[in-house]
C-alpha cells in the first residue's frame, strides 16, 4: 500500500482507492467490491470462507473475497462476474443447461457467479479436466438447491467447446 492508497484493476478498469475516503483497511475485499464499488454479483453468504459464493478471480485464479482484506489485493487484477462478457461460453453453458437427465445449472442463482468464476479459473489452468477434477475444483462451493449434476454437465460441455476452439487456433 502506497501513501494510504491501493490500486486495483477491476474487470479491466483502474481503481485507486484511498483509505478513510474510499474504504477502510479493516474491510474485506468482498465488502469493498460490493458495498463500496457496487459489484453486487460478488455474493456474500456465510462470510467465513465456507460456501464459495464470494469467489472472484485475482490475477486469473479464484480466491474467496470474504477471506482477504482489500489491501491484500493491492496491485492485482480482479475479475468479478460483472467482468465476464455475456457471450462467454461458460456463461452460455450455465445458462443453457437443460438437457434431459441433468436438470439445470442453477435454480435460485445466488451461488451461480461463484461457480462460473471457479469454472473460469479451472479451465484457464486445466483446459481438459476429468470428471473428478471438475468435482474437486468446484467442491468448495455450496449450492443448497443442489444443481451439482447440471453444473458438472455444463462444465464438461464447455470444456469440450473451449478445447475445440483451442485446437482451431
Amino acid at each position, binding site marked *: 500500500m502506497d501513501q494510504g492508497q491501493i490500486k486495483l484493476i477491476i474487470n479491466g478498469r483502474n481503481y485507486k482507492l484511498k483509505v478513510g475516503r474510499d474504504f477502510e483497511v479493516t474491510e474485506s475485499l468482498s465488502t469493498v467490491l460490493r458495498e463500496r464499488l457496487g459489484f453486487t454479483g460478488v455474493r456474500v453468504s456465510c462470510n467465513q470462507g465456507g460456501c464459495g459464493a464470494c469467489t472472484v478471480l485475482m490475477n486469473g485464479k479464484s480466491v474467496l473475497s470474504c477471506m482477504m482484506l482489500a489491501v491484500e489485493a493491492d496491485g492485482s487484477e480482479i475479475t468479478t462476474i460483472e467482468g465476464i462478457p455475456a457471450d462467454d461460453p461458460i456463461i452460455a453453458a450455465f445458462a443453457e443447461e437443460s438437457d434431459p*437427465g441433468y436438470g439445470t445449472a442453477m435454480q435460485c442463482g445466488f451461488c451461480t457467479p461463484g461457480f462460473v468464476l471457479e469454472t473460469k479459473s479451472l479451465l484457464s489452468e486445466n483446459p481438459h479436466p476429468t470428471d473428478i477434477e471438475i468435482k474437486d475444483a468446484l467442491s468448495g462451493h455450496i449450492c443448497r438447491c443442489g444443481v451439482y449434476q447440471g453444473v458438472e454437465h455444463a462444465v464438461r460441455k464447455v470444456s469440450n467447446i473451449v478445447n475445440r476452439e483451442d485446437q482451431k487456433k
Partner: protein
Amino acid sequence: MKYKYIPRVKRKYVGSYLPKIDAKEKAMGRTKFFDDITIKSKVPRMLYCAIMNAPYANGKILSMDTSKAETMEGVRAVVRYDDPEIMAMPPTTNSWTDTAITPYHRETVPKWFDRRVLDDTSRFVGDLMGVAIAADTREIADEALKSIDIKWEVAPPFLEVEDAQRPEAKILHPEADPTSNQLPHRNDLDGGVSVNNIVVDKGDIAKGIKEADAVIEVDETFGGNSTQGTLDFRGCMSEWVDDKIEVWTNHYYSDQVRMHIHDMLGLPLAKIRVHNTNCGAHMGKWNMGEQNFFILTAILSRESGCPVKYKMNVHEEFAETRTKINFKIKVAGKRDGTVTALDFDGIANNGAYQGVTGYALTGFMNAEGIPRLFYPIENVRMRSRVYFTNRIPGGVFRSVGNVQQNFPLGQAIDELAETLGIDPIIIYKKSFGNSFDPQPNASVASVLDSASAEIGWERRHKTDAGPIIDGYKKRGIGMTLHNQWHAEWQENERGRIETSIRVNPDLSVILNAPTKETGAGGNSAAVMACADNLCFLNITPDDIKWVSDGDTEMGLRDCPPTDSVVSFIMSECIVGAALDVKRQFIERASGMMNIKEELLDIKDSKIFKKTEPYICMDAKDVMMEDDCVPITGRNIRNNNKTVTGIGYGAWFAEVEVDTETGKVSVVDLVIANDVGQVMHASGAESQQIGGVFIGTGETLTEEIFYDKRTGTPLNVNYIDYKMLTMADVPHVSPILKETWKGASEYGACGLAESTPTGASAAIANAVYNAVGIRVPTVPFSPKKILEGLAEKAMKEDAK
C-alpha cells in the same frame, strides 16, 4: 439413463426441456437480491440493526442496563423488551404463517401464538430477544449489545423429551399448558378430544394383527439435526416516515409482511408498502413465523429517522431445524402383500417454539397418510405427543413432516417384506393408494415399475449376502414410496389467484404472475404456460417479460412459493387471463371491422371472419388503431375443489458401505415422480436431483451438535455443519411420470417439496441390504455404522 419422459399431451412449451427464463441473468450475476439493493452506497443514511442472541437456553432477564450502549458513538436507537409499546404488542407465532390475519378456520396449518417480538425470556441459545439496536454499522451495533449489563435468572436446559417430562424441568410455555411441557392437542386438528393421546383410530388394530402372517416393529428417529442451510440470509430494510412504512425484504410473500406489520403496529394496509426482491432458495425457512425483525427495524427507523436494515448472520440463520420425531411403528401383513394393521406411536421434540410438529404428527396422518398414502390399509392407529425442549425450534424444512414419517415407515415395510419373504414392491402395490383412485393404484405401479427398471432392482441380493468389494466394502439396494405433494389441498386452502397479461403494441408481453422466484421455477413455468395460451398471437417465451419485483402498492397480490404449488396454480390462472386477452382483441377488432364479435376469431396474430377468413385484420393494426393502448387480460381464479386423488413418488438407492471405516457412500439414486403434468421438464428434473441431495445430506452428514450442559448449538456455521458439495454426490436418474391427473387444464400436483422425502428411507434400506444393520437415527455417521456392525457381530457370535 434408460428412461425417457414422454409428455401425455404434446404442448409447444409447457412440459418441455428448455433453459430457465432467467438463467442468463443469473449466470451473469445480474439478479438483484435484497442485500444488493440495500447497500450503503445506495442508501447512505441506512443504519444497521442487531438483535441480542440469547446466551442461555433457559434465561430470564431480571434487569437490563442499556445506558452504555445508548451513549456509544454511532448508536442511533435502542428498543428494549420492557418498552411499553413492545410489552403491549400481541404475541406472535413461530408456526406456519399463510397470512398473518388469515381467519382461524382458514389457516393452512393451525398456528400457536407462543412468541413475543422482544421477550424477556429465552428458550434456546441464540433466541433473538431482549433488546435491538440500530447503529451506523453492524459492528457498532454488535459492540453495543456486548456493553449491555444484564442480570439473568438461569434454569438448566433440557434437549430431549424425556428430560422435558421431568418434574424439575422448567415449563417453557405456560400459556399452552401451565403444568407440563407437552403441547396440548387441538380438538379441531386431532379429530375430537383425544384419549391417551390417540389421535387416529381407524378400524381395529388388534383384529388386523390377529389376521396377519407376520408382525414387525421398528423404532426410528428422524430430525433435530438439520437446517434449511440456504445462502441468501433473511433480512429487511424498513423506513418509517410520518405515518407510513416502506419495507424491502427477501421474504417470499410481500402481502404477508404487509399483513403482519398491520397486525402488530395497527397501521392501515394502504400505508404499508412492501417490496420483495428475488430471494435465494428458502427450503421452508420463510414459512417460519413472523420474524421479529420486521417490527424491530420499523420501530428503530421511527426512532432514528433513518432507514434501518437487519440481515441475519450465519449463526442466526440456524433458527430452525427439521423437527425431531421418534416413531415406533408396528406393522402387520399377509404374504399376498396386504398390510392388515399399521400402528404408529409418535413423539416429537418440538424445540423451543411450536412450528408445525403437532401437525406433522397428526394432521399429516389425517390429511395425507390415511386418505392419500395408505388408504387401503383397514386398521390404522396413531398415538401422538409433542414436547417443548430447549433445542432450536423444529420448523418447516422441505418435505416437512413427510420425511419423518417415511423414514420409519419405509423401513418398516422393508422389514415386513423380508419377514414375509416377499418383495416390498408387492406390499406397496397391494396396500398403498388413495381414497379416490381405484386399487391397485396405477400411479403407485407406474413410479415403482419405472424406478425399479432404471436401477436394476432385480440385482438386489438377499440381506448382507452381496460380494465383498476391495476386501471390505459391501453394496446394497433399497427403496421406498411416498405420495406427491397435495394438489387438492392447495386448491382448497389457497385463496383466489390473480394474474394479468399485458400485450404491448408490438405484441411483446408483460406477464404479471406474482410470486417470488426462489429457484423453484414458478416464473419459467408461468412464462411457458403464457406462451402456450397466447399461441393465437404466435407468442414465444422470449417475447414475454415476467414481472420479478413484488410491490404491495403497485402489483397484484402475490402467491407464496411454498408447497411446490406456484408452477401449476399460476399457470391454471394464466389460462383464463389469456382468454381475456383474446376476448379483448376480438372486441376491439369488431368495432374496427364492423363485424359482430361472435363472427370473429383470432389465429396467427390475425383477427378474421370465421366464414370468410380473407376478411381479416392484423393484431398489431388493432392496437395501432386504438392509440397503441396495450391490451391487459386479467383473471382472478377461484380454486377448483374437485377431488382428484394424488400421484406418487418412488426413491431407489444403491449404497456402498465401507465396513472398515464405517463410511456410507451412495453410488446411485433413482427418483420417480408422477406429477400429473410436468410444467417445465428441465426445471422439474433439477428439483428432483437437488431435492434428493438434501435428503442424502441429511441422511449422511448434516448434524447440529449441542453442548448438553449449556444447551448451546456448537457448529452453527457452514464449515462445521457439513452439507454435500459436488464432490460428495452420486449420479441421480430423475424420472418424470404423468399417469395420474388432477383437475383443470394442466392437472398437476406439487413436485419439488416432495423430492427429499424418500431419500433417507431408501438409503437406510440399502444399508440394511448391504450389511444387515439398521441405524435408528440420522445421520449415518461412520461411528454409528461401526457400532451397528460391532453389535451385529456380537449377536452372531453369541449364536
